């Protein structure tokens, strides 16, 4: 079976700053992989290039064997890629349900009317927002907005889910709920790439990790090994701890 997501030699420059420098990695179908690294190491930039939100300066992104490197975000999403955002991006003038419904109508597998509503209800229930579809999205608290964003990403029925610090800013009990949700998705066979700082979550969720520092991939391998790697510890904590 070929890779679900295949990234090779990805490059990105912002003016003189090289934000991402020849990063390559693959995700197999059904794999949950963590993309780690200190702040500013280019993780979100990689996410943005996969989803098409930023154009690449070099390299290629292939989804399910198809080249999506030069495609705009709306086309990439039609190849089965859905994402959440580091800072939640709800649509304030729509209700919670409408926010999720939006992923269903005019999408890769469009559904309308009752069929669409059924998906919305199902996804809201899955993330723990059952029966709250008519609320204003701005009245939700932070964890619930994050849940809504997850429901919105899932409603598109993607094959690859990109979670950009989806677990950040949650308190310990909320974190537990969040990890359980992702584990559920893992059980359903979804391919997930998650950018995360919370090691507890990474250990619980990711079989494999990729670590970036200053735009370069510095380590890749099974989570337990990678997190012990002196190069990784040095990147996070400095020379003294390595």
């Amino acid at each position, binding site marked *: 079976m070929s890779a679900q997501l295949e990234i090779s030699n990805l490059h990105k420059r912002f003016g003189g700053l090289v934000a991402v420098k020849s990063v390559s990695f693959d995700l197999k179908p059904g794999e949950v992989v963590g993309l780690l690294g200190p702040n500013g190491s280019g993780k979100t930039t990689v996410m943005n290039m996969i989803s098409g939100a930023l154009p690449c300066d070099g390299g290629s992104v292939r989804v399910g064997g198809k080249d999506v490197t030069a495609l705009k975000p709306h086309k990439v*999403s039609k190849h089965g890629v859905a994402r959440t*955002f580091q800072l939640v*991006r709800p*649509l304030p*003038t*729509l209700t919670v349900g409408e926010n999720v419904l939006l992923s269903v109508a*005019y999408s890769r597998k469009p559904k309308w009317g009752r069929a669409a509503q059924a998906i919305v209800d199902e996804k809201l229930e899955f993330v723990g927002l059952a029966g709250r579809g008519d609320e204003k999205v701005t009245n939700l608290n932070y964890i619930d907005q994050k849940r809504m964003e997850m429901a919105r990403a899932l409603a*598109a029925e993607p094959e690859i889910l990109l979670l950009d610090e989806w677990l950040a800013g949650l308190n310990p009990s909320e974190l537990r709920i969040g990890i359980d949700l992702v584990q559920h998705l893992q059980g359903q066979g979804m391919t997930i790439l998650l950018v995360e700082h919370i090691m507890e979550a990474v250990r619980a969720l990711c079989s494999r990790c990729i670590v970036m520092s200053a735009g370069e991939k510095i380590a890749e391998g099974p989570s337990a090994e990678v997190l012990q790697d002196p190069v990784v510890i040095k990147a996070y904590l400095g020379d003294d701890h390595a």
Partner: protein
Amino acid sequence: MSQSHVAQTAPNRAPLYFGMMAVLIIAVGFLQSWNSALFILNMGLISAIMALGVNLQWGFAGLFNVGVMGFVALGGLAVVLISTSPVGEAWQAGGLRVLFGLAIGVATIVGGIVFWAMLRGNKYRALFIAAWLIAGFFIFRAVFDPAVAAIEAVNPAISGNLGGLGLPVLIAWPVGGLFAAGAAWLVAKTALGLRSDYLAIATLGIAEIIIAVLKNEDWLGRGVKNVIGLPRPVPYEIDLQQSEWFIGLMQSIGANPVTASSIFVKLCYAGLFFAVIIILITAMQLALNSPWGRMMRAIRDNEVSSEAMGKNVTGRHLQIFVLGAAICGLAGAMMTTLDGQLTPSSYQPLRFTFLVWVMVIVGGSGNNWGAVLGGLFIWFLWVEVEPIGRFIAEVITSGMADTSALKAVILERTVYVRPLTMGLVLLFVLRFNPRGLLPER
């Protein structure tokens, strides 16, 4: 919590405000004349349609179009090109040559685009394209200029243009929409990819270009010599005054046939305008509440997350920009039909862009009923504050001596009441009702 409070009160306010608007217009009927009242109503309805067009672009999609005037003027041009009768002599003098000249112009531009793509990587590309465009321009002018001169020499005092197709004037209304849509498509293709403030500058410029073309291309719509006596979709007053049934009808209700004929004509227009506005607002309300409208609001709220959900932001922007401009063009054609003349020099940005924007903002952007209310209300003020201001000034100064300098100053200043009122209304609405009289939700 304050937002949910607004949402609860909003549905009750619309009938109240529209009722007050009706009372204002009826009051004009009683206090001034029914002719004035119907004049305000008719232009108010047309303004409301323009406001609906801008509301579609700004309220639904967040596109900042400050070229409303240009699209309105193109609608006006459509009335001339559709409804006036063709000038046979002018067509013989140079009609086909003008069309041929324009075809050369278009071919030059299209050819430039095609060659630009074909010669990718060729180091002489820029040089060749420049030579192509310059040569094309001179050939275009060589064919176009004598043809224009020949057409404009035909009876310059009464025609000097090619005339139109001689079709019923109502056909010009949708055609006006198409003209504006075509221009909007060109603008959108070049400027929509740019950020919103650049779109604003582009539309501002395009509107001025359209007006400049209308003023200077005499062969097209007689330029500043104006086209007057455009055909009407409703009866003429003079015919009514001479027709048996009308005189009989007016005598039976005891009305003066001369005044009544003018009121009757205005009522006919009002009926047509109401029909258009009802169709438009029904279509727009259905669109706003459909999945398509939800998608548009989503794109306006957050382009990045809408794109990530598979929404083609640029494509939808193009679509809605063209639709909104088409509505402005339709309104422009209706206005020129109501006026019965096309006067390019009367198109001022203050009146046709700024005022329409005030209508949308005061009415409540994102709410179609708000746009209609804003159109009627702001147009009412635009017409009425000047006579009211003069009346007040006269009352204040009635006790003063005719030689009093203060009296002269006060009376002189009454002409500024109109822009002053517009500014004050905008300020007060933005202060106390920042989301307009009828907010989106």
